């Protein structure tokens, strides 16, 4: 979208080439995203029937809103974005690009709202008993703006910006290293680097705000993040470490009272530890949560350092002469991806044993009639299909990147068949 905006303003041929190239890449990613995303809409009913009955009154409306307000917008305008280059005016085409962007951002809102409600339920009451017990909505806006949703929506948005910008940076860095499309790549790199740097810095603040929320609303999760057991003690913050759950200790490099300071801006307030909870009511995989959480933070810090340093070099006019840095950027695409994955792991595993925090246990949320071997069957099938999907995706993505931008006289990377059908 940014490239297309630049093209419209400047009419620079290079931005047109960049736009077409990135739309094609986006189309490929979006295709995979839709295919795997529809599964999520139905998986609640197939695998989590008890959960669906319990929360349908609340969770369902968030998912319905996602479909009606976000997904429809996104998918319809995507058709124009991909296939409408010769059918609509440049302005309408740009408008479509903006709509697709807005659609994806709305989509993230509703999905994160639904997930945040599981973390910090609000705006509901419990009705019925025994088999028919369920949560019923009492206040829609309290449900939408539950204590964690705002922090998490912004955190997820920026995480997505980082994933996107680093994909662009890595591809163009690769071109610069290989000495292809250098002019276009330098332009693209400069623009996107600024967005990436702002996002990386902003993520520091949203991350902090999110963690403060976790401290207030899900203290057991926060304690797991830092492997903090003793409730009467001030809490340290680890740079890295290893948690021993049986000995209830962490070995590693730490900033004494760091967590206490970040939460309360002093060095004396104790932080609620894992021992304050019944063993059944707190996560059991403390080390896993600790590791995923710390990996996310480390990557976040690395991204800040990388982008700020590069911006400084760009300002000095020396950025593109540093070959080692360009090589580093070529591989950097995996960093935000890993950070996003482990971030979700720590958030979701940290909520255990609850599927809805404090209300419904994960073990009570399954489909009653679906047998373990059926779940196994579907799990194996999905694993196989996703593996095929992933390898084909990487193969095609690589092919598009190798093919590069479109220059005059070379209009399509979809080759005509060497032999045709009869």
């Amino acid at each position: 979208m940014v490239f297309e905006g630049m093209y419209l303003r400047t009419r620079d041929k290079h931005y047109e080439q960049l736009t077409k190239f990135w739309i094609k890449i986006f189309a490929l990613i979006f295709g995979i995203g839709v295919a795997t995303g529809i599964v999520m809409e139905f998986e609640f009913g197939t695998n989590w029937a008890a959960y669906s009955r319990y929360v349908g009154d609340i969770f369902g409306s968030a998912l319905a809103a996602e479909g009606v307000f976000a997904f429809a917008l996104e998918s319809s305008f995507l058709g124009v974005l991909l296939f409408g280059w010769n059918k609509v005016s440049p302005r309408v085409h740009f408008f479509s690009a903006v709509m697709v962007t807005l659609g994806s951002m709305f989509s993230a809102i509703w999905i994160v709202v639904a997930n945040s409600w599981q973390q910090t339920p609000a705006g509901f009451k419990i009705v019925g008993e025994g088999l028919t017990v369920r949560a019923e909505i009492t206040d829609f806006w309290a449900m939408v703006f539950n204590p964690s949703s705002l922090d998490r929506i912004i955190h997820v948005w920026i995480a997505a910006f980082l994933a996107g910008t680093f994909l662009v940076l890595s591809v163009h860095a690769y071109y610069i290293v290989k000495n292809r499309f250098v002019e276009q790549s330098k332009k693209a790199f400069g623009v996107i680097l600024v967005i990436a740097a702002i996002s990386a810095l902003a993520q520091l603040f949203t991350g902090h705000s999110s963690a403060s929320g976790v401290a207030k609303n899900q203290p057991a999760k926060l304690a797991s993040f830092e492997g903090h057991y003793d409730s009467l003690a001030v809490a340290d913050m680890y740079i890295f470490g290893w948690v021993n759950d049986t000995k209830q200790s962490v070995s590693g490099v730490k900033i004494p009272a760091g967590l206490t300071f970040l939460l309360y801006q002093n060095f004396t307030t104790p932080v609620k530890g894992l021992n304050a909870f019944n063993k059944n009511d707190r996560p059991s995989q403390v080390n896993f949560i600790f590791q995923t959480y710390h990996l996310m933070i480390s990557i976040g810090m690395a991204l800040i350092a990388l982008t700020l340093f590069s911006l400084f070099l760009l300002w000095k006019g020396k950025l593109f002469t540093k070959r080692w840095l360009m090589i580093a950027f070529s591989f950097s695409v995996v960093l935000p991806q890993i950070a996003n994955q482990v971030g979700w792991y720590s958030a979701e595993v940290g909520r255990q044993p609850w599927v809805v925090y404090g209300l419904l246990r994960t073990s009570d949320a399954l489909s009653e009639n679906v047998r373990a071997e059926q779940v196994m069957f579907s799990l194996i099938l999905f694993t196989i299909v996703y593996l095929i999907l992933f390898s084909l995706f990487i193969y095609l993505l690589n092919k598009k990147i190798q093919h590069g931008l479109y220059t005059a006289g070379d209009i399509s990377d979809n080759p005509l068949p060497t032999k045709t059908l009869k």
Partner: protein
Amino acid sequence: METFLNIEPGTWMFLVIGAVFSGYAILDGFDLGAGTVHLFLRKEQSRRIALNAIGPVWDGNEVWLVIGGGTLFAGFPKVYATLLSAFYIPFILFLLLLILRAIAIEFRSKEPMLWWRKLWDFVYSISSTLVGFTLGVVLGNIVRGIAIDDTMIFKGDLIDIFNPYALLTGITVVALFALHGSVYLVMKTEDKLSDRLADISKAASLFFTICYFILSLATLIYVPHAAEKFKEMPVLFAIPILTLLLIIYGRKLIDTKKYWWAFITSAALTSLLLVTIAIGLYPNLLLSSINESYSLTVANSAASSKSLGIVLSFVLIGAPLVLIYTVFLFRTFRGKVVLDDMSY
């Protein structure tokens, strides 16, 4: 929420969900059907044109499935939970088929090798057909009733799901989509290819007519409860009669090359089929074959009236927007398919 026009919120929700699924069947129906007839096209160029005829719209069409799933979850969480967990294996296969289909559409054009294109053509066509078939099987079971106990939990087996009546419904849906899809393709193509597709659509029309007759007979004999409402109110027989008239009229429109109207006719056929089923079903949503009193109805499975009000107001605001996008999308891509550098 209070009643509106003397109709309960639950019933409004039933109507809305019916309308969304009907919209889904009409829209995704034609691109699934285009997949079913894909292998009957022989030339590479024809297949490319056929694929690009649905290229800009198939994704938007699948949105209706997502909206349908979302509104069902929100409106009738118990139905959503029981239905999807009862048809666990069929729905898992359905989702995998949708993924395979999306991959096939995306990947087909990316390599020039003949075997590559043939492989993805095959995957695309088979998965499109099976998606329609699975939906039909589920629909057949909904009409027939499934083994639900007094706690709303499915007690049946996988084998029960693939009963002859449901299989017949599955085939009928495939036939209907093939008709609908081939008419769409005729409309989007020119010259020889268009003529070839017109022949295919005539064959599909005949096939659907046969299926429809057998299915109607089977319903009257084996699933009499679905026809009860029609016996009580004979005026409702106007609907199957209208269906028959549309089948004949649609065929005539193909013969006289009025393809746009033929497409409207097959769209109307698709929604009439669902209307017929919905009338037979209401006020039930999922019939219990164990004991009728265990059935999930509008009354006993709807979400709270507050939640229904919220979702209905979403629909009230959202539906016009979605219609605007859809019309905008179809207007942008009206007319015959022209291949360009962004095509599949």
